[in-house]
């Protein structure tokens, strides 16, 4: 398949792995931010090809994983209301809330629908004028433009039965939070390519300079990741700390101006809770006036009611790269994809699920 196969070429990947082996002189810990990158690393068995000096830790870039439990409870609450239609991307459905997931709500009769685009939810609202249609707007900078567009479109059409349950988060504040943690062990970052396609990487230059940390904007195919790691190792070995763009076939420094405009029109930056990590200042998006009336939490008058998180789930440490999934005592025993204690065990992009699905046994005894 064109644009895919050349980035999964065994010889090309091995060539880069050889360069890394020759360049590396001491241990380095590199964090890939995005869950999509984690998924590729585990799915392709990329770690098998790396020298033992290079340790990959997995970052907080799984939108499903960091969505706070309170918001899942709110989504479940909406789904169970008569007449409401709760639309969501597929991965969100299995994530446990305090008492149930959206799939459980569906089994109990709630109208929960998987959509592929927020515009599908707008269409549902148009076709069902007497029902409240809510889209669960989860994601990083990547999904924000389309979600903003859905609200903009609903406002233009006067679709007052459409609303958004907003759980949007931003990457750079999360990187900064990880770097500020006293026990941070990350030496370099692979920044999420698709987020940068939208947002550009200007903000990362500031981070790289202030924290003296190499950041490589990296794609999602095995060859991209190996190349990102190679560049990060080269910077670390030569004492540089710059932003490099490995994913130049998709990312420009300034990002996508049109996408940024629609996001700025509809959303404003706000403080946000991250599941397993806590509140990070100015790390999320919320609807700004005059779009606030499309906020589902306000429309349904949903108060934050005592959400309960599993005390045994170490997902916060996993999401900050402080623990590997298999270092959690519940991993693979009390916490499995069928009975997840935390979100990273659910989403296909969650680090725990990726380890469980692709390498659980291979990593036993590590």
């Amino acid at each position, binding site marked *: 398949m064109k644009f895919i196969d050349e980035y999964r070429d065994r010889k090309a990947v091995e060539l880069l792995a050889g360069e890394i082996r020759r360049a590396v002189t001491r241990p380095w810990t590199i964090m890939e931010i995005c869950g999509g990158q984690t998924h590729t690393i585990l799915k*392709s068995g990329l770690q098998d090809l790396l020298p033992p000096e290079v340790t990959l830790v997995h970052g907080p870039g799984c*939108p*499903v994983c960091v969505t706070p439990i309170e918001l899942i409870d709110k989504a479940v609450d909406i789904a169970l209301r008569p007449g409401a239609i709760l639309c969501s991307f597929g991965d969100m459905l299995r994530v446990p809330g305090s008492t149930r997931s959206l799939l459980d709500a569906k*089994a109990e009769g709630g109208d929960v629908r998987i959509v*592929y685009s927020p515009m599908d939810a707008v269409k549902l609202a148009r076709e069902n004028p007497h029902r409240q249609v809510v889209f669960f707007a*989860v994601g990083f900078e990547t999904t924000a433009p389309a979600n903003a567009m859905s609200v903009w479109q609903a406002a233009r059409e006067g679709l007052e039965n459409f609303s958004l349950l907003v759980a949007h988060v931003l990457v750079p504040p999360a990187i900064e939070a990880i770097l500020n943690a006293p026990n941070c062990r990350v030496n370099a970052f692979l920044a999420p390519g698709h987020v940068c396609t939208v947002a550009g990487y200007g903000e990362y230059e500031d981070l790289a300079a202030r924290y003296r940390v190499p950041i490589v904007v990296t794609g999602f195919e095995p060859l991209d990741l190996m190349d990102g790691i190679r560049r990060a190792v080269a910077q670390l070995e030569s004492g540089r700390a710059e932003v490099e763009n490995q994913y130049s076939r998709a990312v420009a420094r300034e990002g996508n101006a049109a996408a940024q405009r629609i996001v700025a029109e509809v959303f404003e930056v706000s403080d946000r809770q991250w599941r397993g990590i806590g509140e990070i200042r100015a790390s999320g998006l919320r609807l700004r006036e005059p779009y606030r009336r499309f906020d589902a939490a306000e429309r349904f008058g949903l108060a934050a009611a005592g959400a309960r*998180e599993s005390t045994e789930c170490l997902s916060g440490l996993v999401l900050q790269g402080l623990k590997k999934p298999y270092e959690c005592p519940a991993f693979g025993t009390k916490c499995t994809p069928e009975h997840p204690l935390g979100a990273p065990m659910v989403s296909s992009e969650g680090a725990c699920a990726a380890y469980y*699905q*692709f390498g659980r046994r291979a990593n036993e005894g590590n």
Partner: protein
Amino acid sequence: MKEINLSCPIPLPSQDRIVLAHGGGGKLMNQLLERVFLPAFSNPALDARHDGAVLSAGNARLAFTTDSYVVRPLFFPGGNIGDLAVNGTVNDLAMCGARPLYLSSGFILEEGLEMETLRAVVESMRRAADAAGVALVTGDTKVVDKGKGDGIFINTAGIGVIEHELRIGPQAVQPGDAVVVSGDLGAHGIAILSVREGLEFEAPVVSDTAPLWEPVAALLKAGIEVHCLRDLTRGGLASALNEIASARKVGIRVREMAIPVEETVRGACELLGLDPLYIANEGRFAAFVPAASAERAVEILSAFPVCRQASVAGEVTADPAGVVVLESRIGGSRVVDMLSGEQLPRIC
């Protein structure tokens, strides 16, 4: 194991109600079998957990199987619920190494179904039965209130006769066996998904629904010592291999590069975040044969259009027991686990 802490807020594990994933062919369905059905009905034929039961009647060995079809939409590129209902049961018999002879068919029809639709389904069942050389010899019809069904549900059961001495089934699988995959994977599941979700591809993906007895018969006739056969329906290749690895306590190692998947199906999977290894097929199977006969088996299968892309995808190993490992395109390896629930399209 730590003491159970009653105040621990472990989320409700959906065990008090049936969820869709209980029918998905993955782990939850296995739990359902192990916790509800097997304890209730346990007997040697059922406990073998093969695609059908192998039974003795006088001197004859018979295979007996049943399957229900609830596909939505009823018509999809490459087939309809009628073809599926015949081919699916014919194939379950073929996987027992049995020549399919007779089928029964039960129809559950929803009030308001158009007669023309029923006629079209029945007509394609007849054609599929003719093509597979089976006769539909008994049946039943029920009609349910509007809203209580999805147009048509069909159950078929089938009887076939085993005309060789082999004991085909998971128990015959041995370390050293080759795993032969009979053709390209994922077309049926993606064809259904494309209609269901209104997705369009440049080249439409057509279901692979087809009867598989002839290629299986050709393997047997050529004297290939077939150890086990599995059709790759719900849960796809990954689930079939996992079932066998855990039933037989062997390892299975497959190579991604040796598993055929058509370009359009791969493309659709890339877009939707699905894995072709887990997608349902309705005209594909895996054969476990001694390594020495693997190339010969591929040669025999390739003569049939439905098995044109047959290939040796991997082999059975002694260790690690119960685990399926895939060697990726780039030479890394990963565990291929059984699916936990439905495959859900991912966010980005």
